[in-house]
């Protein structure tokens, strides 16, 4: 198989369309194999349930402030991300399907497809986390749901961007599970620094417009880490 | 602590010697690596 876009000088639009199609194909493949077993989804959902329950039981009947609630949500989001989002490439290496993917799809769409899957997983788990926190923990109230949603969305994007490229790195390192939190922590720390404060403010009722600057920064960082991942992925994915 | 706060020169001396000790420790490590290499030869 050739790599699609090579033979007869296709127009730019065609190339983009082909790359997009390949991206979606990779994402669809992952979603389908996921839906067959529901392994990652189930374990992620259970992890979220268990984390929030541990928090709820540890806090007890105490009523916590929005600052502490935001911090606890972020702790849970961090550990959910580092445990749940790394599966994408390791699965390929374990099943031995990595080289097939390498043969049929160029690195760019592979990365983008995996990123899409991780984005969906991260969004789902973080949304679930937020909802369960609000439901189960006294004091975790969201006074500005709109901005809360935007913060969760942008941080999920950042998590997905950081974890996709780091998962690819760790797959190369022979899938050492303990490396996930270690390697991803520096990449995620800016998200935490920006996100905890944003989440706290959204929980205490500050709207999107009032914290547009920091939201923009969070978005820019998420996009930057995704782009860097895209540029670097090429270098480690190839044999 | 009180003494160090009043005699600030000793704080500087601690800091300078800390850097010296740190670099010395690194030197010792390099030396150990080199000796291992020489033993194998």
């Amino acid at each position, binding site marked *: 198989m050739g790599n699609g876009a090579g033979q007869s000088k296709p127009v730019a639009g065609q190339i983009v369309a082909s790359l997009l199609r390949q991206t979606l194909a990779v994402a669809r493949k992952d979603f389908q194999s996921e839906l067959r077993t529901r392994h990652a989804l189930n374990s992620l959902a259970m992890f979220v349930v268990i984390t929030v329950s541990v928090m709820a039981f540890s806090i007890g009947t105490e009523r916590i402030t929005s600052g502490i609630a935001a911090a606890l949500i972020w702790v849970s989001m961090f550990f959910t991300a580092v445990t749940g989002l790394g599966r994408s490439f390791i699965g390929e290496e374990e099943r031995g399907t990595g080289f097939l993917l390498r043969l049929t799809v160029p690195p760019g769409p592979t990365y983008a497809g995996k990123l899409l899957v991780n984005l969906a997983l991260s969004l789902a788990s973080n949304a679930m986390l937020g909802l369960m926190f609000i439901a189960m923990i006294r004091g975790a109230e969201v006074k500005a749901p709109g901005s809360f949603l935007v913060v969760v969305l942008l941080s999920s994007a950042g998590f997905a961007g950081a974890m996709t490229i780091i998962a690819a790195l760790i797959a190369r*390192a022979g899938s050492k599970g303990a490396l996930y939190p270690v390697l991803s922590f520096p990449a995620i720390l*800016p998200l935490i620094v920006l996100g905890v404060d944003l989440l706290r403010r959204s929980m205490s009722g500050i709207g999107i417009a009032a914290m547009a600057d920091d939201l923009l920064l969070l978005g820019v960082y998420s996009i930057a880490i995704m782009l860097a991942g895209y540029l670097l992925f090429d270098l480690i994915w190839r044999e | 602590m009180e003494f160090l706060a009043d005699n600030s020169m000793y704080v500087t001396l601690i800091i300078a010697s800390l850097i010296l000790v740190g670099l010395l420790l690194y030197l010792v490590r390099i030396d150990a690596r080199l000796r291992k290499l020489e033993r194998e030869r």
Partner: protein
Amino acid sequence: MKGLLIGGATVLGIVLGFWPAGLMKPKPAWWRWLAITTLAATVLLGLGVPTGGDFRSAIRTTMGRGDAAPLPVYASVVEIHPDSSAVLRDMTDTAVTVYGAAPIIANAGAGKGDRVILGISFNRGRKVFVARRHLFTNPLFTLPLIPGLEERARNIYFHVPCAWLVQVAWFIACCYALLSIRKRRVEDDVRASAAAALGAVFCVLATLTGAIWAKFNWGEFWNWDPRQTAIFVVMVIYGAYFALRSAIQNHEQRARVSAVYLLLMLIPVVFFLFIYPRMVDGLHPGAGSLESQPLDSATMRPATPPVPGRSSAPPSGQAPPSGQAAAPEKKDAGPILSSDPDALNPIKQVIFSLSFFSFSLLFFWILNVSVRLSLLERRREITGAAAVSGAPGPIAEDIVRPS
């Protein structure tokens, strides 16, 4: 002019790090002697040049504490009275009668017309200066007394070059990481990892020395000041980098994966060096970006000595420590608070540039040695592996000669 001095010394230090012999061949003898002498000069001048302030800064510094701790005042002896007091004139032309100074001056063999540095405390009850001890007679150079920093001001000759070299090491490691990806040469990987290892050493040293300094100027060992956060992140990245390296056995794979990780980490590092300091208030002076560091440190600004007057309230909101209360300065006051910094401290600029220069040479010397050592080790590993497998490859044959 001062920017030129410090910037020039910084650039020259890096140029001399690479220029004769690069990182993989031994440095020539003159180079090593230059490193040793400048380093010795830095230590001698940095610790040896006496501090001597004027009477006003002495009052200001003793404000926050008892009479017990005398401060060095640099003044010329104008007159000696029979009642054991003496009239001294400091550098700002303020003449003051100091009690108990006459016998101290006489014991030191000095007299009228000599310039002396005396340990002087200010008695706030009686509003008089009392001489405690003799420190120096006719010094060639003096350093200014900075209220709140005092002798701790000398830390800029040791702590700041370390922090600077952390960035130099990081930059070198990233450059060679990029090269090792592009050209796939073993040497580039060795240079990148050696620079990272040495950078980690300097990172630990800068963090520890900064923490000790922070204890005495900001009240806590650790304040999560933006720069402390940045160096913490760099330290974690180095840790992760070496954890990643030790997890991969295959050399080529290890070179590529770890290089990619280092380059990926440029994004958080840029965030913590350039964006984060603008978001939160820092304790370090000149809380601007690091890009202006070599130039602006003429005023000792980005050179990052903590300024006591800068943060009126420490982050945790507790009462400032005694040293901190001493300098109720304006918020934008530079670290050289005592008087006109332009006229006063050429010697300080010289020592500071010298320290940057000599620490850079030391850094590159150690880097050079460890790169050469790592190359030897790498070569030995290859021959060892070949010997075990029983079939020496083309590289191994080249090295293992029958002896």
